[in-house]
C-alpha cells in the first residue's frame, strides 16, 4: 500500500461543506431529492466522508488512486446538476407508466437446493456458510486502511 505523505494529502485539498458530504446526510424521508448544485470548482471529498463510506460499504480505499477515482466519478456525476429540473418530478423508473403485474399465489419455484449450493464456496449440511454475524469493525484508530495511514 503506497502511503501519501501527510503534507501532500493536505495540499490535495480537504473538506468543503455543501459538497458530496451533504448528499449523505441521509434525510431518508425527503424522497431522494438532490441537493442544490454545489457552487464553484470541483469539490473534494472529505476524509470524514471517506471514512464513513469505508465503514458502510466495507470497502478500503487502497491508495490515493482509489480516492482519486472516486473523486473523478463524483465529478462526472455532478454534470447532472447542469440540467435545470425545476418543477419536474423525479423519475424513479422507466416503468412508471406500466402496470405492476400481480402474480397469482401459486407455488411455482423452489426445490433446487443442490443447484443453489453449487455456487457456494463452503456449505455444511445444505446450509450456506458465512463469516460470523457482523464482524464488529475495528475501532477507527486501529484501522490500517489507507486513510488512516495517511493521517
Amino acid at each position: 500500500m503506497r502511503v501519501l505523505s501527510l503534507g501532500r494529502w493536505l495540499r490535495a485539498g480537504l473538506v468543503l461543506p455543501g459538497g458530496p458530504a451533504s448528499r449523505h446526510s441521509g434525510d431518508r424521508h425527503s424522497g431522494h431529492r438532490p441537493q442544490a448544485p454545489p457552487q464553484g470548482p470541483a469539490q473534494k471529498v472529505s476524509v470524514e466522508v471517506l471514512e464513513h463510506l469505508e465503514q458502510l460499504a466495507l470497502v478500503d480505499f487502497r491508495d490515493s488512486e482509489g480516492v482519486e477515482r472516486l473523486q473523478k466519478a463524483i465529478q462526472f456525476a455532478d454534470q447532472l446538476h447542469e440540467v435545470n429540473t425545476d418543477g419536474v418530478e423525479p423519475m424513479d423508473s422507466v416503468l412508471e407508466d406500466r402496470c405492476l403485474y400481480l402474480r397469482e399465489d401459486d407455488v411455482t419455484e423452489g426445490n433446487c437446493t443442490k443447484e443453489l449450493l453449487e455456487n457456494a464456496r463452503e456449505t455444511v449440511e445444505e446450509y450456506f456458510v458465512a463469516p460470523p454475524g457482523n464482524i464488529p469493525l475495528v475501532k477507527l484508530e486501529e484501522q490500517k486502511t489507507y486513510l488512516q495511514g495517511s493521517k
Partner: protein
Amino acid sequence: MAAMATMVAAGCGGVWCRARQRCARWPGPGSRPFLRAQRAVVCNARGGAVSAGKSGLAPWIPVVGLEIHAQISSNSKLFSGSRVQFAAPPNSLVSFFDASLPGTLPVLNRRCVEAAVMTALALNCRINKKSLFDRKHYFYADLPAGYQITQQRVPIAVNGSLSYSLCIDNKMSQMVTKTVRIKQIQLEQDSGKSLHDDTRSQTFVDLNRAGVGLMELVMEPDMCCGEEAAAAVRELQLILQTLGSSQAVMAEGQLRVDANVSVHHPGEPYGVRTEVKNINSIRFLAKAVDYEIQRQIQELGNGGTILNETRAFDSKLGCTVPMRDKEGKQDYRFMPEPNLPPLILYDAKSLPANMNHQQVINIDWIHERLPDLPSVKREKLVEQYGILPEHSFTLLVWQQDQNCNSSQASEDGLAEFFESVVKQTQMKPKKVIGWILNDLLSYLKQHSLTVKESPVSSFLLADLLNLLEKKEISSTAAKRVLAELWKGEGKTPLETVKEHKLELLQDQKELEQICQAVIDGQENEVMAIKAGNRKVLNKLIGLVQKKTQGRSNPVLVKQLLEKKLSE
C-alpha cells in the same frame, strides 16, 4: 378470567421482583425497594404515567412505541413463487430470485397485497391508492441481495388505529378501552435465517424465509407500559388471525415485535429512545418494556445518559443488554426499487373498465368481505348471552395465550365451545360461563391443550350441566364427574354418576336422619350455633356432606339443620 390474571400479574409484577434482585441500587433518596403498589402508580392505566412515589422526585413518563412485523399468510413468497412454510429442509424453499442470483426480477404476489389491504381496513387506515417500493441497503449474511425491498416513501396504508382492552386495578372487574395510533403499514420482504456457530466462528444461512411477505406495522408511541404493549399486541394478533392475513404465532416467528422505549419528565421533550429486540412472546414483551423503562429511569436518576442504541431482551435474565451488531447508526441508503412500477389499488369508483380482473385489486370489494372483528364478536356475545364483557374478552383471547404452543389454535375455539354448550343445555349462559372459564379452561391449561383437543366435548359438558341443573347431582359432585370425564374414557356423565354413586340423596327421611346424627354428635358446635354463631353451621353442613359422600344438596341440608336446631 385466569388468562387475564396471568397476563396482568406476569406483565408487571414479575419484572419488578426480578429487577429488584438484579439491580444493586435504586433511584431516589432512601433507596426503597420497588413495591408492587408503586408499580400501579408508575404506569397508570388511565393514561400516562404519574408520580414516582413518595420520594419527591419529578415524575417520569414512559413512552412506548412498537414496530411489528407480521408474516403474511400466503402460499408463495412476496416477489417469487417459492413456497412459504415454517419447517422445511434448509434452502429447499428458495428460488433463484430469493438467492439473489443475477438476472432475476421481483414479481408481486397478489395475495400479499390483499392481505395488507384487509389488515389496513381492519385497522381503520387510509389506503394509499398509489404506493411505491424502495430498497433498503444493509449488509448481513441472511440478506443475499444486500438490500431489502420495502415501502419507505409511500407505504400501502397510513394513519390507522388499534383499540384494545385492558383490566385496571388487577381486579378483572373493570375493563378500559385504549387506542394506539398506527402510523403506517407497509409491505416488505423477510430476510433468511442465520444460525450462529460461535465455537467455529461461522454462521449458517438458510434462505427458506428470505423473500416471504411481511406487513410492517409502525405504531405511534402512544403507550406507557408493558401491560399496554402486551394488550395491544394481543388484540392485533386476534385481528390478524380473524382476518386470516397472518397466523401471527409469535413462537413461529410469524409475529415479531420490537419496542422503542424512552422516558421523560412532563412538559419536557421526549427522551432518547432505545430499541428493544429479540422479544419472543407477549409475556416477554411486557417484561422487556417494563425492565427497559425501569433501567432508563434508574440510569437517568443516577445522573447517567441513555444511548440511542439497540438492545436485546435476555429472557433468561429478564433484562435488556446492548446488541453488539448494531453499534453506530445505520445508513440504509434508501433508493426507489427500479424493477417495480407503482402499486395501484382501485375502489368501486375508480375501477378501470377494460382491465383483466385478476390484475385489479378493488378495496371496496375487500371491505365488503371482511369478517367480524374480535371487538364486534365480543359485543355480540355479551348481547346475546348476557355475559360480562371481561368474560367475553377471555373467551376470545385464550386461543393464542402465551403458554399455548399449538400453531393450530383455532379462531373461535373457546367461544364456539361455549356457544355450543349453551345450545345443548338448559343452564343459563351466565352460569355456563363459569364452568367454561373456571373449570374447563384450567384443565386445558394444566395439560397444555387446545379447545379442539379437549377430551370433554361440548356435548358431554352440556349433559353434565343438565344433570346439575335438574338437581340430580350437587355442584361438588359435578366437579367430581368432570374430573372423571377428563380421563376421556368415553363414559357419559350419567354413567359416571351411577358408577361413583354421586346422585343426590332424594330420600328426605334418610337425610333428616343423617342431619340428626350429626347434630347429636357435635354438642359444642350446636351450643355455639344456638348462642348465635351462625358460621359454625357450615361445619355441620360439611360433616353431613362428608357422611353422605357429597351426595346431599347443601341448601336442603342447611334448611334441615336450621329447622332441627331451632326446635
